[in-house]
């Protein structure tokens, strides 16, 4: 993996109000940065939301991304999450073609090994829910390919640093 292929995770605490996602994505487009994935959700603190962004690139790029994010008025705090010190999770829903009993049994077994769950069953399809690192989800999807993937939806990653360290905004 070259330096410019490196995936970086950035967490941003932002104002939870209309237009903020537009401001962030507009900045990425305007500066020519690519977003690999972005997840957004409210935090337990009133009026704030948390964005988890992943970008691919070298050290120069990620430094620029962080600085440009910090410059946005609606972005309250920005941190880089380093891979060794961070819990990273992604969730995926995968709808698999299961034409016969054998296929159904195989899929159920794989889902169990991946500590996932079957969340929907129909005559010729099953939907699995898998949570884990992006690598784990990639691996599961590869295993399901021979059965036939009818549809899949991935959340993009969300992440927290390990231990006491946090990106929280001090009151």
């Amino acid at each position: 993996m070259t330096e410019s292929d490196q995936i970086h995770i950035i967490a941003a605490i932002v104002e939870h109000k209309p237009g903020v996602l537009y401001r962030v994505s507009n900045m990425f487009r305007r500066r020519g940065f690519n977003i690999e994935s972005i997840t957004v959700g409210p935090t337990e603190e009133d009026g704030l939301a948390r964005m988890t962004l992943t970008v691919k690139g070298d050290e120069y790029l990620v430094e620029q991304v962080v600085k440009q994010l910090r410059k946005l008025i609606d972005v309250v705090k920005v941190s880089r999450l380093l891979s060794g010190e961070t819990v990273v999770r992604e969730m995926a829903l995968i709808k698999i073609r299961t034409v016969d009993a054998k296929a159904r049994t195989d899929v159920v077994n794989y889902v169990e090994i991946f500590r996932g769950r079957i969340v929907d069953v129909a005559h010729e399809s099953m939907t699995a829910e898998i949570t884990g690192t992006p690598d784990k989800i990639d691996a599961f999807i590869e295993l399901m390919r021979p059965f036939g993937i009818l549809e899949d939806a991935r959340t993009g990653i969300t992440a927290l640093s390990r231990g006491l360290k946090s990106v929280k905004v001090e009151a």
Partner: protein
Amino acid sequence: MTKPIARSPSMNAEDMETIRMMGSRALLEALKREGTKVIFGIPGGAIMPVYDALLDFDIRHILARHEQCAGHMADGYARASGSVGVCMATSGPGATNLVTAIATAYMDSSPIVAITGQVTRAMIGKDAFQEADIVGITTPITKYNYQVMAAKDIPRIVKEAFYIASTGRPGPVLIDLPRDVQTEEDEIPFPKSVKVRGYNPSIEPHPLQVKRAVDLLVQAERPMILAGGGVHISGAYEELLALAELLNAPVATTLMGKGCFPENHPLSLGGVGMHGTREANLLILEADVLLAVGTRFSDRTTGRLTEFCPDAKIIHVDIDAAEIRKNAKVDIPIVSDAKKALKSIYGQILQMALKRQPSLWLKRIEELKAQLNEEATSTGASLKPKEIIKTLRRLLPEDAIVTTEVGQNQMWAFLHFQVIKPRTYITSGGLGTMGFGFPAALGAKVAKPEVPVVDIAGDGSFIMTEQDLATSVMEHIPVTVLILNNSVLGMVAQWQRLFYNRRYSNVYLGRIPDFVKLAEAYGAKGERVEALPDLEEAISKAIKSDVTTVIDVPISPEENVFPIVPAGKALKEMLWE
């Protein structure tokens, strides 16, 4: 006079005055409380409630003839005065006409607040008549923008807008105001202060970085200072002068920094970059330590970056952390206001009680400057640009303000107009907006009515905003427009001459219109001058006139701006006559 507007002012728990009033009045009251004395604008359907209320307020309104000009006027006002300029337009086309002016202010970090009317809240998103998504359109060219959805939010938003526009790295802020928010009546709180939690503009220089910079500077044999627009914004003139003299470091400025160091000072090298002086462009390559203050290392300043200051260690002071290492690789970054950083660097060096001896470096600078400064005199039939600009400088008092258009006129002014006082040279540096100089001159004159204001113009630029001659006459804002009329889009013609083998494509303007008649049609004065004594007389008269004067000076279409560093080339590849 302001009519009584408050019915029952009351103070609430947060020490906040609350007044029952309409949104339109709340806007104007809030602007007044921020110190706004003048608004540049044009009314229209969606902003009419504000214009109606304006009749009852003691705020001057200057009716522009195009919203772009209203925006540039606010910008010129801000740059001349250092305080926030305010412009106003209606929704849709009124708002989109402001876009060029807002982008101009954004690129040059100029504090303006733009207020736009908007269709009623219920109509937003329905493609109503004169609806434009101006918040969406201006997001990448404003420091921040707002769409106000309740009248009670107006004073807080106005206060935040002024705070954000004028602090840190300044910039334009837009407030979009739906028509029915303007007419909504409510108990409206006026906060005494605002806090924006994601925005902290006051940054102290890091002591360790200052120490490192000091160590580097005192050991330097060939130190040099590159001063940008940030020095103007932070008002760090005295600190810059003191530090340069203490270090015996020559000072070159960027286009935006021009005038932040007196250009008649022995240590001044003038401007650096694509059309920098030869001494600045040659000496910057020899420096061993470069202290760059309030500059973003634009491509026009540095030429090809890999060969910019190849042997120098670079100290970069900027208040915007995102400028550090955006363009240039720097050795010591200092994220700080320029004034604070320069003051603490100066203070520490002073403590070392260091005595600078006249150095070889200083001698080299003196010799090079003497060698390169021959005077140009006209030999051909028409006046030379350098001569025209030097004549203007000679006739203007030191505190007179000069604005420029964009192109050759701007670069001749950059090279030859010696600026002595800060904030007296106003130009569209980043965006390079043709048509900027004239409305900016009007805005500057409104801010500083006591000093002469001259727009150094080209025929191609002036025609883009000349209709605001009407504004200057009607509103009694007398300025001088000095057109270096070469009958072509001069800078494009120069590039076609130098880099496109004289294949002239669509640059000929044909001395149309007759600018003397054009000025007269608006009730302004027009003069055409072709000889030096006539030019002197025309300028002397114009700067004392109580009506705007357009001085049309025909020059040769073959004139080039030299030196020039061709785009994408290194400073050392500079060409000159």
